[in-house]
């Protein structure tokens, strides 16, 4: 579920951080740059694990920043394919179930990956797994286990501005330009199989 990633980066310490001992200033700097951020194809960074190496600090011309090359390791959330983890049901729709852990929200289980015999109940807005005349409910906020099947990355670099389209006579306004709202890192999971689904079922 969690891995260590080794990174080399230039850390710049601003003069108002000079009161801190160097290792603390470096740690705070790395934590504020990486903490709770998704790095593409790496995962969701949580915090610094350890500092492996640092260069001498160098002050450049023009500002008072101390520049240090640092090699360090960060704790990263990156479940591997096939790993089973626990999460909470946040939202349900005919397309599937949205899950979230306390720190990561973008987990989706499509309806094709729900246990065989699952049906969506539109009036209650929830999925029900019917097996041997027994109905088991996917209640909201319930803890479930799921298996990671795929991951998807979306680079968040800004796209170039959309050129204005000529509005044909008679129509009111131009269609709204598409906005990039895709989360940077999404996990698709499966809940069909023994041990998967609500934790309560297997206790």
């Amino acid at each position: 579920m969690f891995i260590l990633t080794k990174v080399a980066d230039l850390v710049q310490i601003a003069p108002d951080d000079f009161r801190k001992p160097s290792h603390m200033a470096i740690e705070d700097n790395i934590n504020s740059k990486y903490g709770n951020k998704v790095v593409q194809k790496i995962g969701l960074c949580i915090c610094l694990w350890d500092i492996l190496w640092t260069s001498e600090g160098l002050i450049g011309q023009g500002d008072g920043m101390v520049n240090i090359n640092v090699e360090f390791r960060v704790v990263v959330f990156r479940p591997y394919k096939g790993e089973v983890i626990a999460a909470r049901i946040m939202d349900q729709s005919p397309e599937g179930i949205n899950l979230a852990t306390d720190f990561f929200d973008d987990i989706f289980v499509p309806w094709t990956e729900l246990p065989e015999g699952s049906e969506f109940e539109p009036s209650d807005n929830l999925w029900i797994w019917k097996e041997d005349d027994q109905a088991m409910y996917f209640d909201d906020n319930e803890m479930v286990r799921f298996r990671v099947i795929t991951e998807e990355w979306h680079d968040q670099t800004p796209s170039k501005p959309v050129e204005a389209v000529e509005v044909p006579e008679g129509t009111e306004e131009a269609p709204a330009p598409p906005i990039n709202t895709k989360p940077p890192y999404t996990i698709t999971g499966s809940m069909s199989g023994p041990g998967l689904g609500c934790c309560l079922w297997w206790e």
Partner: protein
Amino acid sequence: MKILESQNALLSNYEVYQHLVDQRKRNKAQNRRVPANAHQAMTEVAKYLSGKPSPLEKQEETQTYSPATISLLLEKLREANLPSELTKGELLSILNIRPSSTALLSTAIEDMEERFDDDNQNKIVDIIAEVLGSAEADEGGEEADEMDADAVPTVENGY
């Protein structure tokens, strides 16, 4: 930023939890503030790891996970003479999930039905429960404590 090694090591949930607890202790002792974004991520991960159904839920009181118990678990699994060896990834999953039944064990072990017969599956579950404890044992321990507390008449509860 340059990624030197995208996967330097795999961490078990216990190691992450321990790191977060140590960091929190150190920061408290030195009166340090963590940048807000990292602080949020760290508290949320700690909350996730110490909430149900994580086996680390009662770690603070019971201290069931420790480097010693992990090596003991590996030792015992090796001694059990299993027909097929467990891979590193499977052992990691076992540590993270602490399967209390064969159904849960199958989520941690690939092709479990083909590689292990029922006896061996139960053996693995028993070893896990013995070394790492189980959710029921954690609960049971607490109830026992409560019963003890009830048995002793005290001024507070009116006896």
